[in-house]
């Protein structure tokens, strides 16, 4: 398997190196990216998704960016004795090898900081995700009503 794969990779590299560089194999895919709508003037908003990693080694979501916000940060939140805490994770988050990582309400999320305009329900906002191994990819986050606990259309 590995031998075949290496041979194939080598052959590919020899024949079309430019394309290989431009489009690395996608070991990471994003499922159900969504964001919560925000009100006029709201400084920040949250986004959620499931990251699926098919590679044999773990990967890391290092950073993210979006045209709609000054900055996108990776955050976690937790409940501790009736107190809500939210923390910035400057190093990003690890996605396990051959595994998935849920960014969902009640835990990990991305935070759109310094919104240039409100996130309006029914629209989509592009977000560029930067992974250590899988490289960068741009994903459309679907903006859901604030009353949604989960994205609409999920099992409906």
């Amino acid at each position: 398997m590995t031998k075949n794969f290496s041979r194939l990779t080598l052959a590919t590299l020899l024949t079309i190196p430019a394309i290989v560089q431009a489009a690395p194999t996608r070991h990471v895919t994003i499922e159900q990216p969504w964001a919560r709508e925000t009100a006029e003037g709201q400084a920040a908003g949250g986004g959620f998704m499931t990251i699926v990693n098919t590679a044999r080694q773990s990967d890391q979501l290092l950073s993210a960016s979006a045209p709609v916000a000054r900055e996108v940060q990776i955050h976690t939140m937790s409940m501790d004795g009736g107190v809500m805490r939210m923390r910035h994770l400057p190093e990003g988050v690890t996605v396990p090898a051959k595994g998935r990582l849920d960014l969902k309400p009640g835990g990990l999320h991305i935070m759109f900081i310094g919104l240039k305009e409100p996130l309006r329900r029914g629209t989509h906002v592009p977000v560029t995700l930067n992974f250590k191994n899988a490289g960068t990819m741009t994903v459309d986050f679907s903006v859901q009503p604030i009353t949604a606990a989960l994205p609409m259309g999920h099992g409906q």
Partner: protein
Amino acid sequence: MSDWLPRIRRALWLVIWAAMALAGGVLLFRQYDAAPPPAASDIPFGGHFTLIDRHGQPFTDAKLKGRPFAIFFGYTRCPDVCPTSLNRMAQLRTQLGADGNKFDIVFVSVDPDHDSPQTVGAYVDLFGTPIIGLTGSTAQIAEITKAYHLYVAKVPQADGDFTIDHTAAIFLMGRNGEFVAMIDHQEDQNMALAKLRQLVGA
């Protein structure tokens, strides 16, 4: 060493919170036993406050007199607990049917640095049910934080911004501003509905 104060505060909060959860349960049982309700005013949550409404006008606790209310504290940047709690109040109001309009829902942003009065107003409008959105100056927020024994702590980030750790409970207050019960963030919806029924006298 500098870790001590937040830890002690946290521990204190836990104790108060546990005691109140217990008190809430006792209140409910007493209600079911048709025994006279205990003097809820003995329980030290609530009190006078002055905040700012969505139009930038002063809003005092006197404006809430005469009707029970549910009050929740948070900030619009809060990723999950705040929307969940306000959604929950909206759902509970629907579940109460005709009694759903017998109480007010109040949301107080404890983040005046990021949430203007207008923003808080626009934020509460997203929930599809009337919610009174308030915020205030740092001093005003400090006043109500003290009155409700809230844990509210600004946590600085490396980039100069900050997040806010805050109490996530919903306080149910009677028509004279007296504490009646508390709904914990993780509390079962039926239990929450029972507390609310008690609040509006349904």
